[in-house]
């Protein structure tokens, strides 16, 4: 049986459907990523899994336990890092860690091996108040506090939001290390480039899982060919390309513009000609494989059309 098993889960806030018959399954020792825009239901889902809120209907099993009935036992098995920093800002780094170890009936020494590589980075500041730490250090401390009781499952709600790019990269390396201890990880993120680091990814949209699989599977399901256009004048190119015949979607991704057509009857030559005719002469064109973000935008576009 999977470590986290969710079937037809629903949660409403008044008329708003936060979760709409959501189904999901996370393997033991899996590294599972949830991506989706704000309001897709990621946080609601995580709060139900961690027994913080109750679902309206549906079946859910976490580590073989029901978060509604067996929440007391479940809390010992779970580590949770909420999206908002929620440690005590007026306690020091060490006091926070000792407090959370204490309420789980353990000590820092007992599970030190688990957090050693992370904690050693913030240990020089162990007497500093948690509220005075930088964003990256706060996040490391929060991770330590979520791990100190040796959980079997670690749930992280947008752990890298508001953290600089270098710290983000480091953080994902840490998650990989944590996973090597046999811990199951469920993480949500709004950053597409992070999601591909997971071994399974689900796209969440309007309270539903709309795509699920390995990052490779998801992108391969994405049928259309994508043309990437590299140019110095992105705004103009975007404006021009919106009028190219047979267009499905055009979006900018950093330095590039991704172009998708409704059918396969288009060629690179056709695009180059079109751009040249519209005075964009420096465009470099290439065919690329779809990324997760392309799949996601594709889905949302289809959804909006229906």
């Amino acid at each position, binding site marked *: 049986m999977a470590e986290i098993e969710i079937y037809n889960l629903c949660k409403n806030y008044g008329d708003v459907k936060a979760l709409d018959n959501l189904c999901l399954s996370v393997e033991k020792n899996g590294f599972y990523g949830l991506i989706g825009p704000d309001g897709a239901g990621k946080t609601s889902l995580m709060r139900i899994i*961690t027994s913080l809120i109750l679902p309206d209907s549906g079946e859910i099993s976490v580590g073989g336990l029901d978060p509604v009935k067996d929440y007391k036992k479940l809390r010992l098995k779970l580590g949770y890092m909420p999206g908002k920093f929620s440690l005590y800002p007026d306690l020091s780094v060490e006091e926070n860690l000792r407090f959370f170890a204490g309420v789980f009936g353990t000590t820092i020494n007992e599970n030190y091996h688990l957090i050693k590589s992370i904690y050693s980075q913030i240990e020089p500041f162990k007497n500093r108040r948690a509220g005075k730490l930088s964003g990256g250090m706060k996040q490391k401390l929060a991770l330590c506090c979520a791990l100190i009781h040796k959980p079997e499952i670690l749930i992280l709600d947008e752990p890298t939001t508001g953290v600089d790019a270098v710290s983000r990269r480091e953080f994902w390396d840490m998650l990989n290390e944590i996973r090597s201890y046999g811990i199951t990880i469920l993480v949500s993120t709004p950053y597409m480039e992070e999601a591909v680091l997971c071994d399974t990814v689900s796209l969440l949209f309007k309270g539903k899982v709309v795509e699920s699989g390995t990052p490779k599977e998801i992108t391969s399901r994405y049928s259309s060919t994508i043309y990437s256009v590299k140019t110095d004048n992105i705004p103009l190119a975007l404006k021009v390309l919106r009028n190219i015949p047979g267009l499905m979607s055009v979006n900018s991704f950093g330095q590039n513009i991704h172009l998708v057509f409704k059918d396969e009857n288009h060629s690179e030559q056709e695009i180059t000609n079109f751009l040249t005719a519209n005075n964009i002469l420096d465009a470099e064109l290439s065919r690329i494989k779809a990324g997760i973000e392309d799949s996601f935008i594709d889905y949302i576009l289809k959804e909006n059309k229906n």
Partner: protein
Amino acid sequence: MRTVLIILRKEFRQIFRDRMMIPIIFIMPFVQTLVLVYAATLELKDTSITVVDLDRSDYSRNLISKFNASPFFKVNFQDYNYSNIEDDILKENTKSVIIIPDNFEKDIRNSIPVNLQMNINAIDGQSASLISIYVNQILAGFVKEKILHPTVLSQGQMPVSFNVKSRFLYNEELNFKHFMLPGILVILISMISIFLTALNLVKEKEKGTMEQINVTPIQKWQFLTGKMLPFMIIGIFELALGLTIGILMFDLPFEGSVLTLFVFALVYLFAGIGMGLLISDFASTQQQAMFTIFFFFLILILMSGIFTSVESMPDWAQTVNKINPLYYFMRILRSVILKGSTIADLIQEFLALVIMGVTIMSVAVWRYRKTN
């Protein structure tokens, strides 16, 4: 139990680390007792009054000297000119103007009724009526001496007079400070228990730390015990500190037993902390909690009889006071401190506080949700 101790340690650490807490705990009792007791006093002392003496006789001078001799008044003596009376009162140069008429002495000697005029600034109604009472007392003394005195009476007339001597029990000198101090202590302890408990609990919600607590195995009773016990301890400490200040600085008599007082205080703190918890159930920010408490606290404290006698309040107010913990604690503190009452003497108040405490706390704990 271990979990409760861990939470307690965390709470005390946070409380003493809070920049505002040390002043609140250690300075507030001094400020409240030393400043409020004087500020809230109703005593008249050296109130400036003006006497316009139109008679300028032995009798009138004698009366004026009686005013001057009283500790309540200081006479700004003025003769003939009484055109400025209104002006003087308006400008607050004097609180009251008393006019002794022409032929004051002559009329008294001839047993003709005499009229004195008294103008009092009644912006502050309470002190106006006190001034009036004290002036009348002095006049009564004067009348007794000059008019009812045998030498003034014609032969055959017998003075009929009652000599009433009052003794003020439990506060012999009618020392207003001894009346106010227990009241100030009630404010102090109520603020500690209601405000601090509510703000502390709401802070966890507001800062989001509740979210992290909720995924730990900490149980509701452990969390609440760890949250409320510190304020119980601080409340008792504040009472001891406030009482010490009262005894040392105001010669507050302490007739009752310390143990009785602290048993009552514990029961009251239980109810007060329950109120704090109840408000924190409904408030999601510290600001909301603050305003809600302020609203209720002002009503409860004014109705508790801190300044005015509860017996002279309208019936509905007296009924409301039956469920006002501050009212009971006000009575208890005054009775125990000034009168030496025991729990047996105050069994009604004791039971009322116990019932209210248990009820408020039960509802508050029942309503309390760690999650939103």
